[in-house]
């Protein structure tokens, strides 16, 4: 009888040990403080033209003019979370032309929200770059979140007969963006 009592006592102590587990104080409200702000990068627009096409537009002519739908930033999910960012432009011109290129940011009604203009000298020895910052201290982020389309114009500011001595002369406009989003 005494042995059985001892064994039951052992069992009781064991079970009590299992039940009497402890835990440090936890604060699950901390989840509200979680900040997830990834930097997203993407190519935006690329324009490339050979010299013959520019010449074909004539003296001081527009060799490219197009309005393209661009809803990347004004999608609700993106627009609500866009914090800041930079659009990076690169221009390369190996033609014999002096060129003027403009990119206009248009809202849904076609109103111009912002303009980025480039004057490109002929036979540029190096790639021209420009970074445009949107957000605190820079241009308004609202420009991007309300942009619905881009109007791109490429104009020849030179004659329409000269030909570059370089092989395969071209003008290239490339652009890409890096933006900070708040996912949480």
């Amino acid at each position: 009888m005494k042995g059985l009592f001892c064994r039951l006592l052992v069992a009781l102590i064991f079970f009590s040990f299992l039940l009497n587990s402890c835990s440090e104080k936890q604060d699950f409200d901390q989840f509200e403080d979680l900040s997830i702000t990834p930097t997203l990068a993407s190519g935006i627009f690329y324009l490339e033209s050979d010299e013959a096409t520019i010449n074909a537009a004539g003296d001081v002519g527009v060799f490219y003019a197009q309005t393209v739908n661009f809803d990347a930033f004004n999608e609700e999910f993106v627009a609500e979370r866009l914090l800041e960012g930079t659009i990076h432009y690169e221009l390369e011109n190996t033609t014999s032309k002096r060129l003027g290129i403009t990119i206009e940011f248009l809202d849904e009604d076609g109103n111009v929200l912002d303009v980025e203009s480039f004057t490109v000298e002929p036979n540029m020895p190096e790639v021209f770059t420009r970074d445009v910052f949107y957000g605190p201290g820079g241009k308004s982020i609202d420009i991007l979140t309300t942009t619905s389309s881009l109007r791109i114009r490429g104009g020849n500011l030179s004659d329409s007969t000269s030909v570059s001595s370089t092989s395969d002369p071209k003008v290239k406009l490339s652009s890409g963006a890096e933006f900070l989003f708040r996912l949480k």
Partner: protein
Amino acid sequence: MRKGIRLIFVVWLGMHALCAQNKQLLYDFNEIPQALMLNPGVKTSEKWHVGIPLLSGLSFQAGTSGVTVNDLFADDGIDFTTKVRERVLDAMTRKDDFSTTSQVEGFYVGFRGRNRPDDYYSFGMYGETDIIVYWPKDLALLAFEGNGGANIGRSFDLGDLSLRGEMVNVFHFGVNRKISNDLTVGARAKLYSSVFQFQSIHNAGSFRTSPGQNNVYVSSMVADMELQTAGVKGFYDILDEDTSTTTKDLTSLFTKRVLLGGNLGLGFDAGFSYNLNPQTTITASILDVGFIYNSKDIQNYTLRGNASTEGITVFLPEDINDVNNDLWQELVDDIEESLPYEENSSGYISLRPVKVYGSIRYDFGEENGRSLENCGCGVNMERGGGMSGIYRNSVGGQLFLMKRPRGIQPALTGFYQKRLGRTLSLKTTYTVDKYSWTNIGLGLNLQAGPVNFYVLGDNLLSYRNVADSHYASLQFGFNIISWNDN
């Protein structure tokens, strides 16, 4: 909404802080009838046993090979985002997992053959839920850091996404046979009745953003991804309808699925115990070699293909006549065409997670004849007509292997078992696996007359701070046992 997300996150951490189906305390704990479920060839000594319905075998296991709840939610004044970065994103690898396993025995009965007393038959039904989610490291980094900044040029592995889960009801029938005084073998047939199953285990692909050939950046994605689900949509549809009969409908569907009304499968267990000498025994078993054919209530999701984009591109003079101003939408359409997200309802076979146990045990401290006379020992305890082979102590080692989506998951256990007369038996284990190197467990089996009660607790050191535990498990149950000479 925020509360919902927070709840999901906490539940996710809590639930998925579960792991491994290793039941090292129960394995080869011959005094407990449920040991027969881990090795059909275990030595049995009962005349019959009946588990108390729904209470004969309950087991819940919890663990995580990576971050613990305490790591993140301890009230330590450290910024939460910093903790997530340092303790989750920087510390966890794609090999880390969260998983949950729970088992509830519906009923479990065993009896010795009247004409063949060397045979012990057992049958029953239990429900099992098993979910494993590997840490999708690259996808988490992509969400947290993005593809820009320092990650330009980095390839994110889409194959990091790997998960599998199921809830299944198992009907089983097993035969345990004493072949000789030294050898006992057993096998168990299983009929699986699936409640739900989902898996996404063969994903491959990558996402990369790098300096483009033409434009500033090019983003490329190659994907061969699939999520297969069976039985999930039915529950989702009921919840989505959210009518006054939702609870009733859920119960009805659950009951139907549990009772063979859903997807079915077959499987088996096998095992043996062999005495190398009167005091040394080796055992081994293989469990859940089986499959479920999922053909009902199927909903699969695929993302297969490859796409690359540098943004909107215009080449002159080739595109001079393209006056379409929907170039952005064209770009999106092209990507969706190259990388289609599709749904289908094709049936599929899901394999059960196979488990293997092995052990070697050395018994010592033989009981004297007096206690053996009333020990209630069964046929397997008798040797050559005499009573011998009951030892007060056992020591040994166990090996556990389990097939997981990313390979075999091993665990190594050393154990010591102490029998205190007929009524009480204790077993303690030390286990090393990917979840813990300090896992000390303690099991207790109490036989009070015909009533059997057992409780097995794992990783007891972690009970000092459960929230900081990488692993915890608890099993307990009640049985009624009749011994051979009772």
